[in-house]
């Protein structure tokens, strides 16, 4: 890889490692930007910026933290300057199609199947590799536009006003989308992890 050749030193920047890192970065950027070309651009810029002086890093972990910090800023920039991602009608359509009211009865009470049950020791799951696989799968299951604003809010830490301006929606609309994303995630984590009878957590618990 040409970037590696340009920087002297060492196995910190060997092309095998760099290509793995690059793939992780593209995955990350694409998750936020929802567009492979924008993602590739952001990653290239971030890598080019980050690898100047990369020899200074003590190891891959430090390098990676640095590279992802730069990428995160880059992605936040792109999100801020990107044109309104969606028009209101496509948002409304998605919201209608994603009938989270399949969780509630006509009077707005939990259907017995979907009533949340207590989760045993959720903190402990944060340490379990298997949990994060389920978590990512659940995130993937959130409808695209909801996922976009949810990630801006919870992952990138945008203020709600900024999301509304960027995406071009009202705060009422944003609150509905965030609520639905959370309902979906809660439902998915409940079904796929906490309520799952033979969840690996039972074996893996420390």
């Amino acid at each position, binding site marked *: 890889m040409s970037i590696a050749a340009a920087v002297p030193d060492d196995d910190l920047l060997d092309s095998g490692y760099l290509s793995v890192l690059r793939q992780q970065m593209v995955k990350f950027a694409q998750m936020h930007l929802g567009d492979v070309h924008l993602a590739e651009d952001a990653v290239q810029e971030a890598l080019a910026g980050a690898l100047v002086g990369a020899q200074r890093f003590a190891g891959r972990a430090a390098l990676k*933290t640095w590279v*992802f910090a730069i990428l995160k800023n880059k992605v936040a920039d792109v999100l801020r300057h990107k044109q309104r991602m969606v028009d209101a009608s496509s948002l409304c359509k998605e919201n209608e199609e994603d009938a989270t009211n399949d969780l509630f009865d006509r009077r707005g009470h939990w259907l017995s199947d979907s*009533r*949340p049950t*207590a989760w045993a020791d959720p903190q402990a799951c944060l340490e379990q590799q*298997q949990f994060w696989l389920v978590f990512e799968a659940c995130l993937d299951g959130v409808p695209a536009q909801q996922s976009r604003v949810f990630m801006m809010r919870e992952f990138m830490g945008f203020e709600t006003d900024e999301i509304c301006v960027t995406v071009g929606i009202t705060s009422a609309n944003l609150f509905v989308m965030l609520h639905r994303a*959370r309902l979906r995630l809660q439902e998915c984590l409940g079904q796929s992890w906490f309520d799952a009878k033979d969840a*690996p957590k039972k074996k893996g618990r420390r």
Partner: protein
Amino acid sequence: MNCDRATRLMSESQDRPLSNGERTALEVHTWMCVGCRNFRKQVGFLRQAMQAFAKRQDDDDEGAGAGRV
């Protein structure tokens, strides 16, 4: 107040301050509704998990093999 509305307020409480009226109505509802009591804890956990998830994206480093099952 029903569960649909209560969960919406619990979600919104992560994004804006609730009014006194909203908070009171929510308290009364969750006091009586075990499903919504659970949901309230879980929506708080979601935020915490997302923060841990964001951090993992940074830290999930050279041990890509080591920690994995």
